[in-house]
C-alpha cells in the first residue's frame, strides 16, 4: 500500500548554496505526482530529500520536515527509510558485478534474506511488475550489463520494487530511453500506482499529462504551483506556470 507524504518548509543546501526554498507540498497516497520545471530548478534535489539521499553528499544538508504517513523522516533512521521509499535513477545503474537475478534481489539479499525460494518468488514477481520477466526469464544468470538500456532501466525498477517500498521516487526514468521503452515505463507507472505512491520527475510535459494525477511546477528552487494535472495544464493559476507549459521559457 502507498503512504502519503507531507512536506513542510523544506530547505536544501549544497554547501552554502541554497537550492530549495521553503517547499510545502502534500503528496497523496496511491497517486502519481509529476515534478516538472526547467533544468537546475531543484527537482532532483527535492526528490533526493524524500529518501534522504541528499544527506549522503558531503556538505549537503536539508532542514524542515517531511512526514511519511505522519512520521517525520528526519527524526528516524535513513537506512530504514530507504526500504520504505525506493528510488529509480535517471540513468540505469545496475550493479555491474551481479547477475540479472542478483540485481533484482540485491535489496533483499544484502539485507539478510537467505531463503532461496522466497528470493526466487520475489525476483519473478518484481520482474513481472517491471514488464521484464518474459525477456530475461531464460537468462537470469547473465550479467545485468548484458541488457539494453531500456531493459536495464526496467531491471532497476524491478530492483526497487523487490524490497516492497510504499513510495517510489523516479528521477526522469525514461530520459535515456527510446519512445517504445518510454511507453512501457509509462504503462508500468500507471499500473503500479494501485500499490505505490509515485513521485516522478520528468522533462516531458506530455508524459506528465499522460500519467500524473497531480503535477507540481518548480522554478528556481521554489514550488510555484501544485494541483490536479488537468488544472495545471489547462487552467494554471500562476503566470510563470503558464509561460512554462506554453513553452515561453525553460
Amino acid at each position: 500500500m502507498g503512504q502519503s507524504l507531507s512536506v513542510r518548509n523544506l530547505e536544501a543546501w549544497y554547501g552554502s548554496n541554497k537550492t530549495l526554498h521553503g517547499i510545502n507540498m502534500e503528496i497523496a497516497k496511491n497517486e502519481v505526482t509529476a515534478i516538472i520545471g526547467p533544468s537546475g530548478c531543484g527537482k532532483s534535489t527535492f526528490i533526493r530529500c524524500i529518501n534522504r539521499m541528499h544527506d549522503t553528499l558531503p556538505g549537503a544538508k536539508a532542514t524542515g520536515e517531511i512526514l511519511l504517513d505522519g512520521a517525520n523522516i528526519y527524526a528516524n533512521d535513513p537506512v530504514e527509510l530507504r526500504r520504505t521509499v525506493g528510488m529509480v535513477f535517471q540513468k540505469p545503474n545496475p550493479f555491474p558485478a551481479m547477475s540479472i537475478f542478483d540485481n533484482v534481489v540485491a535489496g533483499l539479499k544484502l539485507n539478510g534474506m537467505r531463503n532461496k525460494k522466497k528470493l526466487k518468488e520475489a525476483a519473478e514477481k518484481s520482474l513481472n511488475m517491471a514488464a521484464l520477466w518474459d525477456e530475461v526469464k531464460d537468462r537470469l544468470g547473465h550479467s545485468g550489463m548484458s541488457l539494453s538500456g531500456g531493459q536495464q532501466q526496467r531491471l532497476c525498477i524491478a530492483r526497487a520494487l523487490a524490497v516492497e517500498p510504499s513510495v517510489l521516487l523516479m528521477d526522469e526514468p525514461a530520459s535515456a530511453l527510446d519512445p517504445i521503452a518510454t511507453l512501457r515505463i509509462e504503462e508500468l507507472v500507471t499500473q503500479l500506482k494501485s500499490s505505490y505512491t509515485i513521485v516522478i520527475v520528468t522533462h516531458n510535459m506530455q508524459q506528465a499529462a499522460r500519467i500524473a494525477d497531480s503535477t507540481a511546477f518548480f522554478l528556481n528552487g521554489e514550488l510555484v504551483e501544485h494541483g490536479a494535472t488537468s488544472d495545471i495544464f489547462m487552467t494554471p493559476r500562476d503566470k510563470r506556470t503558464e509561460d512554462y507549459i506554453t513553452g515561453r521559457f525553460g
Partner: protein
Amino acid sequence: MKKHRRKYVNALMLALFSIATLIALVPLFGVLGYVFKNGVMDVNLKFFLDLPVPMGMTGGGMANAIVGTLILIAIASVLGIPIGILAAIYLTEYDRLSWFSTLIRFTTDVLTGIPSIIIGIVVYTAIVVKMKHFSAFSGGIALAIIMIPVVIRSTEEMLKLVPHTIREAGYALGIPRWRTIIQIVLPTAAKGIVTGSMLAVARVAGETAPLLFTALGNQYWAHNLNQPIAALPLSIYEYATSPYKQWHEQAWAGSLVLIFLVIILNATARLAFRTRNN
C-alpha cells in the same frame, strides 16, 4: 606542396618512435636472452627438488630457496594485501578529503619511493634485533611493508573508477553503507584490485636487499617461520659472489627461475585485467 611536407614529417616521426622503441627493447631482451643462455642448462628437475650441496660435490638444487621465496611472498601477501585494501577503502569511501587522508596519501607515495634496503634495516632493528634472531617472519614483514603502498594506490584507483551512482543505488535499497562497500563496490572493482595486488606481489618477489637483514638465507629447509629461510634472490646473490664456477651456474639457473616466477605473476595479473575489459 604542403601536403607532401606533412607526409614527410609524419614518416620521419614514425621512424624516430620506432627506433627509440627498438633501442629500449635491446637491453630488455639482452638481459632475458643472457640469463636464458646461461641458466637454461642447469634448470632441471633436480634443481627444483634438491637442496644445495656443499662446494665440490656435483648436483644439488635450490628447492629450499624456491619454496622459501613462495613462503615469503605468502606471508607478505597475507599481511600486505588486506591491510592495503582496507586502507584504500578508508581513503576512497570514508575520508577522501581531510588533512588526515592527504597525509596518508603523501606518506604512501613517499614510502613507494624509499629504497627497499632502508625498509630492511628498519625491520632488522625493530624485529630481528628485538627477537634476537633472523626469521622468515621478519622477511615477510619487510616485503609486506614494500607491498602495502603499492596495493593502497592501485586499489584506490580501482575504487575511484566505480561510479558514485552504483553506491547510491545500494543506499537507495536501504543497504547500509559498509555492506554497499563490501558487497557491491568491492566486487565491481575486484578484477582491478586483484591485478594491482598481483603486480605488487611480482614487485616484491625479486627483492633482495630487505631480505639480507631479515630472512637471511638458509642452506637447509626452515622448519618454522621463526628460523632464517632461504630465498631465490638471496641464493643468487650468495652463489654469484662466490669464487666457484659451479655455483655461478647455479646462480644463473636461479635467476632464470626467478624471472619466470615474476613473468608468470605478471602474466596472470594482466590476463585477469584483460577479461575485465571485455
